């Protein structure tokens, strides 16, 4: 058990504390069985002295002064004591030891699945500086925003006060799906559409209900990668002959592979997770090269509280297209800029430097899964896609390529975690005011 041992003043221990070096102590004499941590310098602890004599010095509700003179203070040293010795330690301690305390592990409490929402959609809109975007005419007007997911339910969005346009003609659904674009069952895809609308309420939705594939025998929210290939084939055709009514195409993907068991193993030429030559990874690169902004959620296999479906163990979980060098891989933070514990961390497989940036999740938003919040990197990704669609209203891909826009996002991101890029936050949280300022300074927003 890790312990903190409180020692009275000696000139040696006081000098060690002042100089920040370990104290020369005979651990066994102080407490039988104690192993002192030789890397921990003693810490001076001021002695509490109540103003009113004779009262309990640890009753902090009263007026107390603290004696900081070295001779009046005590000193903490850190060590370890075998568990079976701790019960008798206080009895057998040396008279110079006035206290033996536990030294528990401390850690921040990250938001995990099942935790209450952190903030609301209004809070996230504020964090996204939606008002500033709107003032610059950046609301998604003229931008096609494809939601590749379980399908969108427009009627639900309208009940929630949203009125996005949806281009049914240029949407797509797998063969055998009875419902039409915009009229699919209210589920994950509708949540994504809602969250994308936080920054881009005027974007035109394209409903790509890939995860409504009938090519499986399990419940509705699942598909096969082959369905995504067909969908992306359609998106590539659209991007290569983008109608004049659209300035840009943004594609948001809040899905992926939960387990490597669903794939050929890495090293097999048919593998998907680690293989840039897999057809889906090829077509993703083609779509971005043609001028579309493609975003993928990082996944919910973060080390602190992974989704129970995650089957990656300790191996890298950001894989396949989610880790593609051409895409924006989005990690999740809550409204307080704290990484959510389930947000997958890098390195990625196709590109090690993933996630790219982080965006907001775990907030009271669409209500699709009420009482649960909009959560997962599933929510973070469309929130980020909405920001890109907003930017594209004034800065189409014909003027600022997807690669260039990614670079702007990296440079302006609010740096969290380790300095610069790190595998938890990427380059940081998307910082909309900084993005707008950068674009303005470059003359991209001149009327």
């Amino acid at each position, binding site marked *: 058990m890790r312990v903190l041992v409180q020692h009275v003043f000696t000139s040696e221990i006081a000098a060690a504390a002042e100089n920040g070096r370990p104290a020369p102590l005979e651990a066994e004499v102080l407490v039988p069985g104690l192993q002192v941590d030789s890397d921990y310098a003693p810490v001076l602890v001021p002695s509490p002295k109540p103003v009113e004599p004779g009262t309990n010095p640890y009753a902090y509700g009263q007026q107390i002064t603290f004696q900081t003179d070295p001779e009046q203070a005590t000193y903490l040293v850190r060590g370890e004591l075998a568990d079976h010795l701790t019960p008798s330690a206080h009895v057998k301690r040396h008279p110079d030891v006035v206290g033996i305390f536990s030294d528990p592990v401390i850690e921040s409490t990250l938001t*995990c*699945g099942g935790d209450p929402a952190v903030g609301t959609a209004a809070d996230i809109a504020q964090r996204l500086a939606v008002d500033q975007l709107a003032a610059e005419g950046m609301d998604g007007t003229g931008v096609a925003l494809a939601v590749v*997911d379980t399908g969108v339910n427009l009627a639900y969005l309208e009940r929630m006060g949203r009125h996005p346009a949806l281009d049914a003609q240029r949407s797509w659904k797998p*063969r055998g799906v009875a419902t039409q674009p915009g009229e699919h069952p209210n589920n*994950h*895809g509708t*949540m994504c559409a809602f969250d994308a609308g936080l920054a881009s309420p005027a974007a035109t939705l394209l409903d790509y209900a*890939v*995860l409504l594939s009938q090519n*499986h025998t399990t419940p509705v*929210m*699942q*598909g*096969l*990668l*082959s*369905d*995504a*290939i*067909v969908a*992306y*084939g359609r998106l*590539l055709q659209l991007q*290569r002959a983008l109608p004049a009514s659209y300035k840009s195409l943004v594609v948001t993907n*809040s*899905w*992926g*592979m*939960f387990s490597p068991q*669903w*794939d*050929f193993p890495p090293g*097999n*030429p*048919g*593998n*998907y997770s680690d293989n840039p*030559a*897999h*057809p889906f990874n*090829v*077509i993703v*690169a*083609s779509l971005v*090269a*043609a001028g579309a902004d493609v975003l993928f*959620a990082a*996944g*919910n296999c973060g080390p602190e*509280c992974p*989704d*129970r*479906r995650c089957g990656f163990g300790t191996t890298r979980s950001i894989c396949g297209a989610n880790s593609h060098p051409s895409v924006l891989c989005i990690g999740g933070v809550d409204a307080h800029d704290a990484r959510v514990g*389930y947000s997958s961390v890098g390195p990625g497989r196709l590109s090690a430097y993933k996630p790219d940036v982080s965006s907001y999740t775990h907030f009271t938003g669409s209500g699709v*899964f009420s009482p649960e919040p909009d*959560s*997962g*990197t*599933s*929510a973070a990704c469309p929130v980020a896609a909405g920001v890109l669609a907003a930017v594209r209203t004034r800065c189409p891909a014909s003027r600022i390529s997807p690669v260039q826009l990614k670079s702007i996002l990296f440079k302006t991101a609010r740096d969290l975690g380790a300095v610069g890029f790190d595998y938890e936050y990427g380059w940081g949280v998307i910082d909309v005011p900084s993005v707008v300022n950068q674009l303005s300074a470059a003359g991209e927003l001149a009327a």
Partner: protein
Amino acid sequence: MTVKLDPGHASIEDVMRKLNLSDGQIDRDFGVVNIDPRRQLYTIMVDAGTAERLSGRPDVDGPHANPKIAPFGPVR
């Protein structure tokens, strides 16, 4: 599987002729998907037996995995 095709001859029938496939061996619903216009690469979906027969051909790459995909939220 991935095939290199002349863009002007990239229909299902063209692929069936090129690879000597019969109906039922190629998934018509999947079709012929252009995955890389610059390199004229297309993807088709075939059954396992046909994939085994086609692998090793110099003009065909694969077979490639077709794993399950699922949405990332809500977190379970």
